[in-house]
C-alpha cells in the first residue's frame, strides 16, 4: 500500500530532489540538456537551498577560472619555427 501511495505521489507532484542528487545534475543543468520538467525541479530546489545555490555558483566560478588557463599563448620559439616552416613550404 505504501509503495502504491509513494508511486502516486511521485507521478502527481514533482518529488523533492535531494541535494545529493542535484549535484549530479549540475552539468546537465548548466549544459541546458535537462528535460523541462527536470529543470523545473532543479530550479525549485535551488530557490530554497543555500547549499546547492553555493555549489552551483562554485561550479560556474570553477568553469570561469579554468577558462583563464586558455589565455596562454603559443611559445614564441615554436611560433617562429612554424613561420619559418611556412616560408619553406611556400618555396618548396
Amino acid at each position: 500500500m505504501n509503495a502504491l501511495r509513494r508511486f502516486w505521489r511521485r507521478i502527481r507532484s514533482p518529488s523533492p530532489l535531494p541535494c545529493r542528487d542535484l549535484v549530479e545534475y549540475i552539468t546537465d543543468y548548466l549544459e541546458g540538456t535537462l528535460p523541462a520538467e527536470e529543470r523545473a525541479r532543479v530550479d525549485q530546489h535551488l530557490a530554497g537551498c543555500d547549499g546547492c545555490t553555493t555549489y552551483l555558483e562554485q561550479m560556474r566560478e570553477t568553469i570561469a577560472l579554468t577558462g583563464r588557463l586558455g589565455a596562454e599563448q603559443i611559445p614564441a620559439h615554436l611560433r617562429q619555427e612554424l613561420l619559418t616552416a611556412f616560408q619553406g613550404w611556400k618555396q618548396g
Partner: protein
Amino acid sequence: MPVATAEDIKLVQRLREGDEAAFAALVDRHGASMLRLAMNYVSSRAVAEEVVQETWLAVLEGLGRFEGRSSLKTWIFRILMNRAMSRGQREHRSVPFSSLFDPSSEAAEPAVDPDRFLAGAWASPPHRWEGVPEDRLVSKETLAQIQMAIESLRPAQREVITLRDVAGWSSSEVCNVLGISETNQRVLLHRARTKVRRALETYLDERA
C-alpha cells in the same frame, strides 16, 4: 556537425597562396590549445612541440585536399589528435582510443563526498567563495591548483575539459574531434569539472 564556413574556405585559399599573415593568425588562434592537447598524450613538452610542428606541416601539405566537410578547426585538430596518439602509442603512453573515451569503463564516482550529506541533504555545505579576495581567486597559485587537478584527471576527462573549458570549444566541436557521443562528452565533462571544483574548494577552504 560543423562544416567549413565561408571564412574557412577563404582562409584555406589564402594559405594556399602563401599568405604568411593568415598562417600566423591561425597559429596564434590554435597553437596554444594544440600544444596543451598534445601534451596530454606524449611524455614531454619537447615531444608535444614536435607533434604540433608535424601537424602544421601535414595541414599545409593537405590543404589541397581540404574539402570543407568539417570546419578547418576540426580538421586541424583531428590531424593533431591522430599524430599525438600515435606518437604516444610509440612511447607506450596512450591507451587504445576506444576505451579512452568510454565513461562506462570508469567506476562511477560521486561528485561530492557522500559523507557531506545526511539523508540526502547537505550536512556540510560548501562555503561561498564570494569572501575570497578577487586577486587571490585569480592568482597564479589558484590557477596552478586547477592545472594540477586537470593533469591528475583520467585522459578522456582531461581531453574534454581541456577543449571545453580551457579552449572554450562547443560540445559539438568536442564530440566531433574526439569522435564521442554528446552523452559521453557530458559524463566526462561532469566528472572532470566536479574534480576541479573539489580541488579548488579544498585549496580555498584550507587557506581561508
